[in-house]
């Protein structure tokens, strides 16, 4: 019983470890990658709308109030839309079926 509790606690500690590496600062750049290559970099200070259409599918990306989110997508699971708006450095939105990744970065 004691060993079980120790095991479960160490699993939770291991899970939480990446928090140490996260910065809490706001990012102001969103890097959009498709297929592992940078597709476009958007400035979060400017409101914008962008539709990415390729052989995998379609995602409509919106920048509003210094946040970025996927408004609509024609993928099966809709995970990217459900993820909601992101704005902090290091946060990501992923659409695995469309091989799309949006990542917040800080402008150096």
């Amino acid at each position: 019983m004691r060993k079980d509790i120790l095991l479960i606690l160490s699993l939770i500690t291991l899970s939480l470890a990446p928090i140490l590496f996260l910065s809490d600062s706001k990012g102001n750049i969103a890097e959009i990658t498709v297929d592992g290559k940078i597709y476009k970099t958007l400035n979060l200070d400017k409101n914008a709308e962008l539709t990415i259409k390729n052989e995998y599918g379609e995602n409509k990306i919106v920048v509003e109030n210094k946040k970025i989110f996927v408004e609509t997508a024609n993928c099966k699971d809709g995970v990217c839309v459900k993820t909601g708006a992101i704005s902090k450095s290091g946060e990501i939105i992923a659409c695995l079926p469309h091989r799309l990744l949006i990542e917040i970065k800080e402008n150096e």
Partner: protein
Amino acid sequence: MRRYVILSQIVAFSLALFLLESMIPLPFMAPGAKLGLSQIATVFTLYYFSSRDAFIVLTARAVLSSFFFGGPGVFVYSIIGGLISLCGMIILKRTGKFSCVSVSATGGFLHNLGQLFVASIFMESAKFFYYLPILGVIGVATGIVIGFIANELLKKIKLTKFDNSGTPPYPPLGGGQ
């Protein structure tokens, strides 16, 4: 021969749980977060039968669920997460130091960790580990629940001990055969 009849019943049970889970609306917590109810069958088989049989049940369930409800993309995530999880559970079970519940908790954790690895490789970005805190904890929590359920099943169905050599005296499952 009877071994495979019972194992295929367990696979069917696992698929039913998989389908049942997809019909339960759950609040969106993190990408890929699931209850993993179908793992009840894997954990049960691991303890009731053997590592090899658990491997058969897991693989069959992953192939069939991707065939019916997912697709080739879903299959890769499902099978790799499942195999990493099962390998970890087999190793922990072999040590004989942990209960079914904490072994299953490790399985849940490793399942989600494995899927993050697959996502990182596919999408060529290590950024996915951003989701490890939430997915790892969800994996542990669902693993504990699955472990408890499997444990209860084991208590209820443990009529005769499975003997891996020769013809095992299987308990009647469900009856009517």
